[in-house]
């Protein structure tokens, strides 16, 4: 039943990674690698299978992001992403759903006293 830690973490993250990407690009337009850096700074390393690229592709296809090309700091022109109007609506709705789910799970797991021995 139990999956190893990194695998569970990947599975948990998978359902909200689109929200995380929309959130970090809402802080300021970003290109692909820049987004992963912003996530990593907050402790969210993209682990396991897949990466952000298919997800960014889907967000673009669904009209949830706008893109443009611009020169990065001393590097080649990069494709920058930022949430579209629809993307910001999706982000707001997704965050509300996430908070409701998180609170519900917390209410079940919070009383658990078992801890992993170090």
């Amino acid at each position, binding site marked *: 039943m139990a999956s190893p830690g990194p695998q569970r973490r990947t599975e948990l993250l998978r359902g909200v990674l689109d929200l995380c990407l929309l959130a970090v690009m809402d802080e300021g337009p970003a290109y692909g690698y820049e987004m992963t850096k912003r996530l990593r700074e907050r402790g969210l*390393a*993209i682990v*396991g299978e897949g990466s952000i*690229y*298919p997800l960014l592709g889907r967000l673009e296809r669904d009209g949830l992001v706008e893109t443009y090309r611009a020169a990065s700091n001393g590097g080649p022109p990069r494709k920058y992403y930022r949430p579209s109007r629809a993307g910001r609506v999706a982000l707001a709705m997704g965050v509300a759903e996430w908070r409701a789910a998180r609170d519900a799970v917390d209410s079940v797991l919070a009383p658990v006293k078992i801890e992993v021995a170090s």
Partner: protein
Amino acid sequence: MSDFVEECRREWRRLGVPDPLAEEMAADLASDLGEAEAEGVSVEEFLGSSVLDPRSFAATWAAERGVIPEPPGRGSDRRTPFALVAFTAVAVTAVIVAALLLATGEPKLSLVRSSTTPAGTTRSVVHSVSAASPIEWILLFVAIIALGFAAWLWSSWSRSRPPTAPA
């Protein structure tokens, strides 16, 4: 790193991704991988297990972006089953036919007996099936049952469809 990008490029070409799009995706990927490498982040760390299967990675990216059809097994699950459409069409047609048969009052089917007499051939109507005959009512009843069954099948099918897959 460049091998990985080249593998992706080949896969996009094989899948029929338009060249400008493939070039754009390859350039973005190469730039990001280059920057990651310069910062000491390994390709494996950046791309996860995707690095082991560049073709699958490239195909998934292109499909999610909508530049090629979705891989089999994802899109096909959402496709409307042909048999269900056909069954529904037959049921609807049967209901309409039965209703029309009942709506018209004229006899429509007759059993005719022909016999030859010295004066010539005579034909006599033995039995006529009219609008009031039970056969139309039975047809209508069966057609309505079939239509209801089709509605239930549609309902089951729509419930069993997989939700939009998360990343």
